[in-house]
């Protein structure tokens, strides 16, 4: 079997065929196929946990750096019963959603503009490349200096950091629009803005979706990191306190918590993405 065959076969298994969605001979076949995806995911997670436990139990890494997986999960379950944890989750999610929303509102329109206008793109290329390399982590103390341990400090770091990948993805997505699609719209008298909104934007959507996913996760990571480093109330500060007090199990419990928050965000955005770009070859037939 050649690789290309395997590809196509896999594709059908996962997506029910990308080009078309032929109805399989029996419905039973479909359910039989759906189960392994979940099973395989569980298996992968289980394998990772096994490696973790092995590292912890066999003392490959010292106790103060790595807690056991069972203890960490148990502790996580415990802290999820406290209001403190939920307050922190609320604070983290609030900062995250504000940061991401602002980034989306800024990056996508500007990205569309820069993607469509060569002049604007070339004018801003240096500035963008320069600014987006200035490290968010390096700015944390500055933000802390200016705003103290507050949500503003978090946002000052998070918003720019989320804007860059999204901006870039949008620009590239726009530039990858099929020229013939634009010409079609153009020849039918669609104006500049209609073309932007109804041809370029949908066509760039797959890129933008990847960008939103990237940014959503970067936002989450940075919110938690800033909370951790500056002690802004939230999940991150819980980790920081646990670290300071040398409570390794707590550190891992809260780290798991932040991982799960990120995972939830990603899964949410993948779902949204599937809806928004249902027409796209990578998604066709998924719904």
């Amino acid at each position: 079997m050649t690789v290309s065959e395997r590809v196509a076969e896999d594709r059908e298994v996962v997506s029910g065929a990308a080009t078309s969605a032929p109805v399989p001979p029996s419905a039973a076949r479909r359910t039989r196929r759906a189960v392994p995806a979940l099973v395989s995911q569980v298996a992968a997670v289980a394998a990772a946990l096994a490696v973790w436990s092995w590292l912890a139990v066999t003392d490959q890494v010292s106790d103060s750096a790595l807690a056991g997986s069972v203890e960490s999960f148990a502790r996580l379950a415990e802290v999820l019963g406290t209001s403190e944890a939920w307050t922190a989750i609320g604070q983290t999610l609030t900062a995250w959603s504000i940061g991401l929303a602002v980034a989306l509102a800024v990056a996508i329109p500007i990205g569309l503009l820069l993607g469509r206008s060569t002049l604007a793109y070339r004018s801003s290329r240096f500035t963008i490349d320069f600014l987006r390399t200035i490290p968010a982590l390096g700015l944390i103390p500055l933000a802390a200096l200016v705003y103290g341990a507050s949500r503003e400090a978090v946002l000052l770091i998070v918003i720019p950091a989320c804007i860059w990948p999204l901006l870039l993805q949008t620009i590239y997505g726009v530039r990858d629009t099929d020229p013939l699609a634009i010409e079609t719209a153009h020849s039918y008298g669609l104006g500049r803005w209609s073309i932007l909104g109804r041809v370029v934007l949908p066509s760039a959507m797959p890129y933008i979706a990847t960008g939103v996913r990237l940014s959503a996760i970067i936002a989450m990571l940075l919110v938690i990191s800033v909370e951790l480093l500056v002690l802004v109330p939230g999940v991150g500060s819980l980790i920081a306190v646990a670290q300071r007090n040398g409570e390794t199990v707590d550190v891992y419990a809260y780290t798991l918590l932040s991982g799960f928050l990120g995972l939830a965000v990603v899964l949410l955005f993948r779902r949204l993405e599937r809806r928004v770009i249902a027409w796209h070859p990578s998604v066709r037939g998924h719904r």
Partner: protein
Amino acid sequence: MNQSSTVPAVRIAGLQQTFDVNGASRHVLDGVDLEIRTGETVCVVGHSGTGKSTLLRCVAGLQRPSGGEVAVAGQAVAGPPDDLAVVFQDYGRSLMPWLRIRENVTLPLRRSLSRQERNARAAEALAAVGLDGVERLYPWQVSGGMQQRVAIARALAYRPQVLLMDEPFASVDAQTRADLEDLVVRIAAESRLTLMVVTHDIDEAVYLGDRVVVLAGKPARIAADLEVDLPPGRDQLTTKADPEFLRLRGEVMSLIRRETASIAEGVSA
């Protein structure tokens, strides 16, 4: 009426087109002159790769000519003119994969019409090309010929004054093709549509056209411009059996064949 007889719907003068390819330049069109009166149908025929699509793109304002002038309704073309529609040769790519068929057809209608009117127009146009009941499918869920008809329906629903079609019936079966030809003839007559059709089917060119233009040469120019002098009211059976039809058909065919031969010589020389 008065104005339309003085100002041609489409005026092409001394059109030159050169492409830059791998450093060298490919001279495709060389001094093409053509005038199309309002309400007239002109069919363009020519060898594959002569420059028919290029010519159309210049008229549609999608390509800036290297030289010469194009005017639509008396206005020099600098971008796609108003009330002009194009059916592209590569119809598959010209449909938006993220829009359902109905939305593809209503796409250009947004500005002026209400949602209901748009849908009504789309339904009407789709029915006219024989596509009822597929409004809610995506373009990639229908056959090639159906996609091509969606592209035609979109152009018709737009109700342009000038319609450019690039091999619009290439992917449909003989029967559907005949029906579509008659549809286009009828609409063109009813609404004084100015029509420019690129086709490689000589029967079709003679059947549809008030004039048939042969594009030939390397670089291409207009090798012949024939008036089609057939009685009005075309009919697939009687018109295609008309001696004048057969004469014209033969003439165009021999013109193209001669051109092909001379090109072949040119290549081997």
